[in-house]
């Protein structure tokens, strides 16, 4: 199973890797400027360490034949689900959210890893002969395998991650050839589920929606993050304030500045021009992902690449959208930028999936 011959290496997607390298450099320098924790720079160093771990994950995933991974998808799905159940039963609680499980000295977030399991399982399902052609039955089945874990994740509570599953699901259904009329039906179903979701939301989540609609309803309280993020981004202006001048970030006006709101730090420091460079890296990464999907020679590879790319795209867009005030605040990290081990490793493994498909494109 693990065999890398020279033909595989010839098909490595170098632009993709260049984009990732660029993002890692931007992430590390941004974290270095932040002095989070007891000594400045520790976060950046740990981020680099996690990058190393993630790189190993990427290489492992890329060297595996994705078709074999998809065949093993039911197993992965069950493992992932077990992880989620474990969290909900005996997970570690940090600041009110039970998202982590302790593995020796490390704490990992099963919901992060589950995103990959979910993609594999959905692709496995959509490729199975007995759901062809993709119709109502397939939609119901795939929604079912999304909803159960989504509910477990919502309970943590981690609404953002749970909601991520659905754009990925829709992209996979569309890519698998679902009739577009059904897409309308799916949208309707989603809309009708909104009131239910509203009822299931916690108070702070509803407050975030209100704040999104009216940022100045509580400037010192729930709207503080959004307003400070906007001030940070806007004050960066065209060219940014530089590391020393980025007062919003340096003086800690910006909350969650090394994790979910790292984009605002970057935007304050490097301005509009810097943001364009960062976003270009992301767009390059995503377009290479879509290209891998589009140029795949068979459905498993295409759907896998499409799912992986959509997952990354959704996370990036939702995070940047939330930080720039285009979307309500949901706790989703910015892939490859935000500090966080699980997110970094899983993002790189997602890229590994893409590489795996690319390298076996011509086999």
């Amino acid at each position: 199973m693990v065999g890398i011959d020279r033909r595989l290496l010839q098909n490595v997607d170098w632009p993709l890797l260049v984009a990732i390298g660029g993002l890692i450099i931007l992430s590390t320098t941004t974290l270095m400027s932040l002095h989070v924790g007891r000594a400045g720079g520790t976060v950046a160093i740990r981020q680099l360490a996690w990058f190393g771990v993630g790189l190993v994950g990427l290489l492992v995933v890329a060297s595996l034949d994705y078709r074999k991974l998809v065949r093993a998808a039911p197993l992965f799905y069950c493992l992932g689900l077990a992880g989620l159940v474990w969290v909900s039963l005996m997970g570690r609680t940090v600041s009110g959210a039970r998202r982590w499980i302790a593995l020796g000295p490390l704490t990992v977030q099963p919901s992060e890893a589950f995103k990959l399991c979910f993609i594999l399982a959905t692709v496995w399902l959509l490729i199975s002969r007995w759901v062809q052609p993709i119709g109502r039955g397939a939609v119901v089945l795939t929604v079912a395998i999304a909803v159960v874990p989504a509910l477990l994740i919502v309970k943590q509570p981690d609404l953002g991650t749970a909601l991520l599953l659905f754009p990925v699901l829709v992209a996979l259904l569309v890519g698998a050839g679902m009739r577009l009329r059904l897409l309308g039906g799916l949208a309707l179903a989603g809309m009708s589920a909104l009131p239910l979701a509203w009822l299931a939301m916690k108070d702070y989540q509803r407050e975030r929606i209100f704040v999104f609609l009216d940022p100045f309803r509580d400037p010192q309280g729930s709207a503080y993050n959004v307003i400070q993020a906007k001030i940070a981004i806007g004050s960066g202006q065209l060219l940014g304030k530089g590391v020393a001048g980025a007062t919003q970030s340096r003086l800690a006006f910006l909350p969650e500045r090394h994790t979910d709101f790292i984009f605002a730090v970057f935007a304050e420091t490097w301005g509009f021009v810097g943001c364009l460079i960062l976003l270009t890296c992301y767009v390059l990464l995503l377009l290479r992902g879509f290209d891998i999907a589009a140029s795949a020679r068979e459905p498993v590879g295409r759907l896998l690449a499409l799912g992986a790319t959509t997952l990354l795209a959704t996370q990036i867009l939702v995070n940047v959208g939330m930080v720039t005030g285009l979307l309500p605040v949901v706790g989703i990290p910015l892939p490859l930028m935000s500090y966080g081990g699980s997110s970094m490793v899983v993002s790189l493994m997602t890229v590994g999936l893409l590489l795996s498909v690319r390298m076996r494109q011509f086999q």
Partner: protein
Amino acid sequence: MAGAPYPGWRGGFPGRRDAGHRRVIAIAAVVTAAFLVIVGQLWYLQVLEGGHFRDASEKNRIRIRPIAAPRGILFDRNGVPLVDNRPAFTLSLIPRELDRDVARRDAVLGRVAAILLIPYQELVDAVARVPADSFLPVRVRRGLTLEDVAKVEEWKLELPGVIVEVEPQRAYPTSRFAAHLLGYVREANEEQLRHGRYRRGDMVGQSGLERLLDEFLRGRDGGERIEVDAMGRPMRLIQQTEPHPGGQVITTVDRRIQEAAERAMEGHAGAVVVMDPRNGDVLALVSTPAFEIDRFTGMIDRAAWLRVVQDPNYPLLNRAIQSQYAPGSVFKVIVAAAGLQEGTLTPLDRTYCSGEFHLGAWTFKDWKEGGHGGVDLHRAIAQSCNIFFYQAGLKVGGSTIARYATAFGFGEATGIDLHGEKFGLIPQPKLMRGRRAWHAGETVNMSIGQGAVLVTPMQVARFMAAIANGGVLWKPRLVQRIERPDRGVVWSDSGHVNGHVELSPIVWAFLRQSLWAVVNDGGTGAAARIPGLDIAGKTGTAQMIAKSKAERGQDHAWFTAFAPLRDPQVVIVVLAERGGKGGQVAAPIARKILNAIFFEKVAAAGVSG
């Protein structure tokens, strides 16, 4: 792809441009469009609105902490301070460091209220006025005692966000020293804040010289621009501006005389003015009862404020310039001056005083039962004979008396720089027509300073100074000059003359001689006599119409004098409200003060070193 053959696990796509390919491209296009929306939003935030957000981020990180400029000091004419600054303890709250939890915060405020006996609501209001994340101290109470400070220190651990600051505060020689002259200093009130010249917490002169000279005294506050972090902790000093201390005011007041006058007035309500007749300098200005000026500085509580405002004795009133009284017999000097100058009276005019005077159906009485017997003008002034002046007044005429009174500055402001001076009133017989037409009885009343005539002690002082100096009406001067440490003299006043009274030298001499007799030759002012000092003065008793026995002896007592006779250096006016007769009550007070002025000089200087 619907309807296309199922490619399965191993199958490939028939061609490169299949339906699935198009769908992937479509999804990629949607994602790319979303990125363009984000770029648009960034363009809006960073380029279009960037300046606005840059300002907001500056406002976030920059705090300006004012450094109060020390208020200028008021000195007396000899360079002795009338008021000084001393460090005082101020209780302040730092909103940022108070507990975020409202219940616990209120518990802290409640504890402070209980320890220092401050109304709880006052504390809550003070905190509510400023943003909750401010790290700038909010002053809650100035002028804590050492005991209070000790209590706060003792409870320190249970009082997060409560601090004691040290600030300069006004200090006075005694609790009520020169209260009306100096005036009190308090935090800018709501109206002054609305006016826009002051910031909350600024100390502003609210009355007296402190109010008049506030502009000069307050100096210019300095400030620090500090960079703070999100917790409001100061991170570094960006810029510092040193405060410019207020100007030093050299007044005309003599602290020694002021203190002597205040001592002499103890137990009496009324006013004392001491003036230099040579230049109009106000050497002392006393109004009693005085308010406790040291308690008015800083933060007076509502109850104490109401107690002063509602006091039936009106301690806030500056009786030297804001109260009007009938001048009583003091006014006879004007009748005499008018008559002598106009030729309607001569020193040889004699009258027999039987104690009663009849005019038509009316009977006017002398203050002395049985009368003074035969009197001429000189004796009539010295013994303050009413009967003589009833007749003299009729001879001189109401209009002429009014004209001379006006010439001596009555009925108009003296122009002293203090706020709220009253004008007094001199009735003008010529202007009275119809039902209010002037009749002879009113002239009779006016001749002895009763009836409608009203004067202020300051006007009497200026009048007496004119008698002493030969007719020059000085504008009372309170401030000689104002100096700034960095710029030297920034303001000075060399004295202003409001007017002249032209009388022949012989008349001046006669008046002075008669006034000397008041004190030294069997006159009504004998109680003011100091052997060896030639004092010239005049008593006055402003009669209150006694409606009951209880109101007897409720007359206002006047005594005004200048000394020494040949080279007048000081003029003094004493008014004792409801004191009784001028000669019995006011004259002894004046004597004490004059004695202090002329004879206690050396002793006082010895004590003060």
